[in-house]
């Protein structure tokens, strides 16, 4: 972290988001204190938000943490989105619900060291010992003399102070900003339609580009005739690009690297020209269909071909002597991310440098891949992150940035690459299709004595071997299997957990019923075992915190009371370092289930921005219910059967829960994940409530989309 000098304050509003309450005018001069912030001569503070904003609201919450330790009034803060800056920032990444958790210490340090430098400057200027000074909301006071100065008055001097190596952080009980609800710093710009997103980027002389990719997984480009397209109005060029960088990383996941690019003056002209392309594709590998996936995954879970990734006790003996055995298989289809803003990116590549701007969750990785693709040193590449119209994991995989760079390099002009919805949905990095079989053995006292799960997926198993109920059952086994596929898959909001939580927590409901126990009591008994006498040493969760959210949701929802006409289901899950328990209340309306209310208890440690946190929880719940009920992607001969929202069903207003009530555990623990943890458990709470409504156990997702389910059934042709 380097101290710095004066910077000029022109055009500051162009890229800054004033906090909604802000009243101060822009200052005449800004003074850099460190990489995270600068202070204006009038006390206004600009705080850089280092991480990509995908709707998880870090552009508000990360600066709040800095402002807390800096001890400024939030209304005197403007927030600026940082671009990729490896000198000043680390982990500029949106993923794994880790921005706040992993940024917590460094953001606090950034604010606290800046505050210390301002104090040192004030001490020098006021000729008093620094220990006699205190701060409050941007004002430095010397109690003995009654004198005070504003941050703005000492900012110039503060920038020249030595950066302190050790610094004391606030006691959380003294927090004034953290733990209070602050509105989205981009709120006003969003509701007035200001250019914020990648698709809104515009530059003088900028061209528009689109790409044509193989229509099915397993196909590759053979040849193309662009004569018709090239003759169309507004079309500049049509050519082939190869976007595989020499050093391919995980973030370059993408099935199609040989593409046809169409470049022109406007989006509509390019869209029309793309349709006029005559392209021949050829088979590169097997064209897969969803019934093949079903077959292969079923073969695995039935025959058990893989080795165990965890084994406690002697499961086979325990099952053999069990009084009761419960078994069920669960499955779920591929899912597309379907961010509302389709993939896009701006690039301007010249002989000397490459400037990129757009929606990307992994700018550090994109920078490396672009450098490799263009054969350019990484220091010549700049990446600016725009606000993103959704991420959900899709924008971890930045091939669209490479495509834009390759096109710009070829045409030697600035270009914005735009995907249509169809481009977006048919060349995704999908949530894999999954299948698992659970088996539980109860003894004559209805105690869970054996537990086994076999799980399989396209590209990777959905299982976490060391998560609950590992540690709570003496005889326990996990077996995993991953099927190769040419369909590209990747992280989708709460990877693996988004499926396995539903399967596991639905199954435990069934086991509790077989044991004749209340589903919450049954789970608590298992947690009790894991607390008092855990089986094995590698259990990934804290059983007390886990049980804590379950007890909290039990109390708040009034679990166990008589509610005529209301069917209730419960679920609890741990992921992304946070604990969530939910109760779903379903009522039947005209023969259709309607989610009346979701009760949600969350333990994610300190909550930085409570109302925004509630929004994340609510969004995860709606997302989880929507995908479990309606959504899915299926394939026929390598081609996805859905390519737009006419066939791919997403949850809509009428299907959303009527009410969601959330309760946070107040324990003062450093914050953990929030963007993902509320999604995984809700599908099971819903499935368990639906079971109470009609006696049917839901084991195949999506519950309310029979057409999609049929596409994954062996005996039904699609």
């Amino acid at each position, binding site marked *: 972290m380097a101290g710095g000098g004066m910077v000029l304050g022109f055009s500051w509003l162009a890229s800054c988001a004033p906090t909604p309450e802000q009243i101060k005018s822009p200052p005449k001069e800004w003074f850099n204190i460190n990489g995270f912030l600068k202070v204006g001569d009038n006390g206004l503070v600009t705080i850089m938000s280092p991480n990509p904003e995908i709707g998880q609201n870090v552009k508000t919450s990360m600066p709040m943490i800095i402002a807390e330790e800096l001890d400024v009034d939030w209304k005197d803060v403007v927030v600026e989105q940082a671009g990729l800056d490896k000198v000043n920032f680390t982990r500029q990444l949106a993923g794994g619900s880790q921005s706040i958790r992993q940024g917590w210490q460094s953001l606090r340090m950034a604010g606290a060291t800046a505050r210390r430098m301002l104090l040192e400057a004030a001490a020098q200027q006021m000729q008093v010992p620094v220990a006699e000074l205190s701060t409050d909301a941007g004002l430095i006071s010397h109690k003995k003399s009654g004198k005070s100065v504003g941050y703005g008055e000492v900012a110039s001097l503060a920038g020249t102070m030595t950066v302190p190596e050790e610094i004391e952080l606030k006691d959380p009980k003294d927090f004034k900003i953290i733990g209070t609800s602050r509105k989205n710093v981009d709120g006003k710009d969003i509701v007035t339609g200001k250019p914020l997103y990648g698709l809104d980027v515009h530059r003088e002389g900028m061209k528009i580009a689109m790409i044509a990719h193989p229509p099915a997984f397993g196909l590759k480009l053979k040849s193309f005739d662009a004569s018709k397209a090239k003759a169309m109005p507004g079309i500049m060029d049509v050519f082939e690009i190869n976007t595989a960088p020499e050093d391919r990383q995980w973030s370059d996941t993408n099935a199609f690297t040989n593409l046809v690019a169409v470049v022109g003056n406007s989006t509509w002209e390019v869209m029309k020209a793309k349709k006029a392309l005559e392209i021949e594709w050829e088979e590169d590998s097997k064209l897969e269909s969803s019934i093949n996936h079903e077959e292969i995954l079923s073969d695995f879970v039935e025959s058990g071909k893989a080795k165990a990734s965890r084994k406690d006790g002697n499961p086979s003996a325990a099952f053999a002597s069990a009084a009761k055995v419960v078994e069920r298989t669960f499955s779920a289809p591929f899912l597309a991310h379907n961010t509302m803003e389709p993939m896009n990116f701006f690039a301007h590549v010249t002989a000397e440098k490459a400037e990129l701007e757009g929606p990307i969750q992994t700018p550090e990785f994109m920078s490396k891949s672009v450098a490799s693709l263009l054969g350019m040193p990484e220091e010549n590449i700049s990446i600016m992150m725009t606000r*993103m119209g959704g991420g959900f994991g899709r924008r971890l995989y930045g091939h669209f940035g490479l495509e834009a760079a390759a096109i710009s390099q070829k045409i030697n002009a600035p270009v914005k690459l735009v995907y249509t919805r169809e481009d977006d949905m048919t060349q995704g990095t999908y949530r894999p299709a999954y299948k698992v079989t659970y088996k539980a053995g109860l003894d004559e006292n209805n105690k869970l004595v054996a537990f086994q799960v076999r799980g399989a997926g396209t590209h990777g198993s959905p299982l976490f071997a060391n998560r609950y109920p590992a540690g709570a059952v003496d005889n326990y086994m996990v077996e995993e299997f991953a099927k190769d596929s040419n369909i590209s898959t990747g992280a989708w909001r709460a990877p693996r957990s988004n499926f396995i939580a539903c399967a596991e927590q639905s199954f435990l409901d069934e086991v509790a019923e077989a044991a004749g126990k209340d589903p919450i009591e049954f789970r608590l008994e298992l947690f009790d075992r894991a607390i008092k006498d855990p089986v094995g040493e590698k259990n990934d969760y804290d059983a007390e915190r886990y049980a804590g959210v379950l007890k909290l949701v039990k109390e708040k929802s009034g679990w166990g009371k008589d509610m005529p006409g209301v069917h209730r289901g419960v679920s609890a899950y741990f992921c992304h370092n946070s604990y969530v328990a939910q109760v779903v209340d379903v009522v039947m309306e005209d023969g259709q289930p309607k989610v009346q209310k979701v009760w949600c208890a969350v333990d994610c440690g300190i909550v930085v921005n409570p109302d925004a946190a509630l929004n994340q929880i609510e969004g995860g719940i709606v*997302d989880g219910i929507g995908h479990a009920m309606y959504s899915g992607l299926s394939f026929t001969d390598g081609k996805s059967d859905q390519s737009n929202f006419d066939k791919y069903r997403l949850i809509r207003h009428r299907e959303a829960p009527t009410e969601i009530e959330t309760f946070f555990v107040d324990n003062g623990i450093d914050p953990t994940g929030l963007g993902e943890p509320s999604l995984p458990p809700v599908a099971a709470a819903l499935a368990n409530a639906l079971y109470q409504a009609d006696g049917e156990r839901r084991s195949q997702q999506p519950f309310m989309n029979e057409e999609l389910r049929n596409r994954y059934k062996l005996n039904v042709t699609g």
Partner: protein
Amino acid sequence: MATFNLKVNGKEHQVEVAPDTPVLWVLRDHLQLVGTKFGCGMAQCGACTIHVDGNAMRSCSVPVQSVADKSLTTIEGLSEKGDHPLQEAWIEHDVPQCGYCQAGQIMNAAAFLKDNPNPTDEEIATAMNGNICRCGTYLRIKAAIKTAANNMS
């Protein structure tokens, strides 16, 4: 190519585009009014909702030649200072997550509230059912529409 005279947010514009160009792309590419969003291109998601003579329309599926003599309003022109009761309610309820669909949601809600200033929850859900929010902010959208309706009455 043909020349079209368009009235957008009270201002006259002249554009030279192919007659089948969707209004969405005229707004975004030719008039630099990018508040209207591209989501699906087939009137399924509502992100591109604007008002044509006061009625909510999906601008991705309306060719420019069909609106030449009509008055268009986009999110940029819904209010002069960004203080339409819906815009204010959206901020009060801190509705947006990613925010991308919200201009379309607001435009759809604004046309709806003009026809039905005192909607029930059921009527709100039905009227808004064509607008997808992938982040799942539906409950807040509903609450904001109710607040705006109260403030407008």
